[in-house]
């Protein structure tokens, strides 16, 4: 529990720090840290697969992509225009208020009898070893029970890939030079 609270505190600090910092490079690096903290958080919450992915993606790929974009755009510092972020404040406060109000009677954190943990999930834990025979339930659900979602996920990646290639890539003209 303690670890949990400390991590949350760190997460909050880094997030707020990112919103204040004007040096883009710094923002990206701290985002990397934020992401790593998230990954740790996921481990604490028993989501090892998610933690692994978050570490690889958030800390790794995302940060590298952002750094490459930074270097390509050649910008280091966010030019701050004197824009009054009232809109932003309202939106984020509205979001916060709505969620705070709405979550206040949500099933409590880590409650084993919360509906989320009662209906579908136990089925996976109980049946997957017989039906699929793989110890990692996450993999079973990911690849088989909800394999269609994963197919979608691959397609999303594929879409992003062709998007980036079509935007940045030098496709057939490569042979000319």
């Amino acid at each position, binding site marked *: 529990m303690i670890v949990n609270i400390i991590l949350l505190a760190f997460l*909050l600090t880094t997030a707020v720090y990112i*919103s204040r910092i004007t040096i883009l490079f710094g923002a990206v690096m701290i985002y990397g840290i934020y992401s790593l903290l998230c990954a740790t958080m996921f481990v604490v*919450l028993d989501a090892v697969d*998610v933690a692994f992915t978050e570490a690889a993606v958030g800390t790794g790929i995302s940060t590298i992509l952002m750094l490459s974009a930074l270097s390509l755009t050649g910008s280091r510092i966010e*030019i701050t225009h004197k824009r009054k972020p009232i809109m932003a404040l309202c939106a984020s406060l509205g979001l916060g208020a709505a969620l705070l109000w709405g979550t206040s009677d949500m099933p409590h954190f880590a409650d084993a009898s919360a509906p989320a943990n009662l209906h579908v999930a136990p089925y996976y834990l109980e049946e997957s070893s017989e039906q699929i025979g793989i110890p990692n339930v*996450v993999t079973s659900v*990911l690849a088989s029970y909800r394999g269609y979602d994963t197919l979608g*996920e691959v397609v999303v990646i594929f879409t992003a890939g062709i998007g980036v290639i079509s*935007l940045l890539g030098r496709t057939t003209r490569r042979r000319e030079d």
Partner: protein
Amino acid sequence: MTTFLGLLNYWVVIALMMTGLYIVIAASNYIKKIIGLNIFQTAVFIMYISIGKVSGGTAPILTGQPEIYSNPLPHVLILTAIVVGVATTALGLALIVRIRSAFGTIDDHDVRESVNE
């Protein structure tokens, strides 16, 4: 106290979401906006994983012994969501790079100005 601990995770997650959304809207630099977007999404990921946490549970990798496992379904969903997130980030950054080439800036404010001229 139980309410406090029971909902603390959600509260912090809400604060993170607020920060993320604030950055997305308030920041004028596109890269900063993308970072904000990532923070926002990641906060949602934590929310999902928190929903699936069971006290005293372990990672849902079956060991053969009767044990309490955390809920695997949110994990699966978030794995997908993370991938979607990184795909969006990659595409967004590529667009930003092109915008830099086309407009000479990656600042929303400047871009708007240059278009209005």
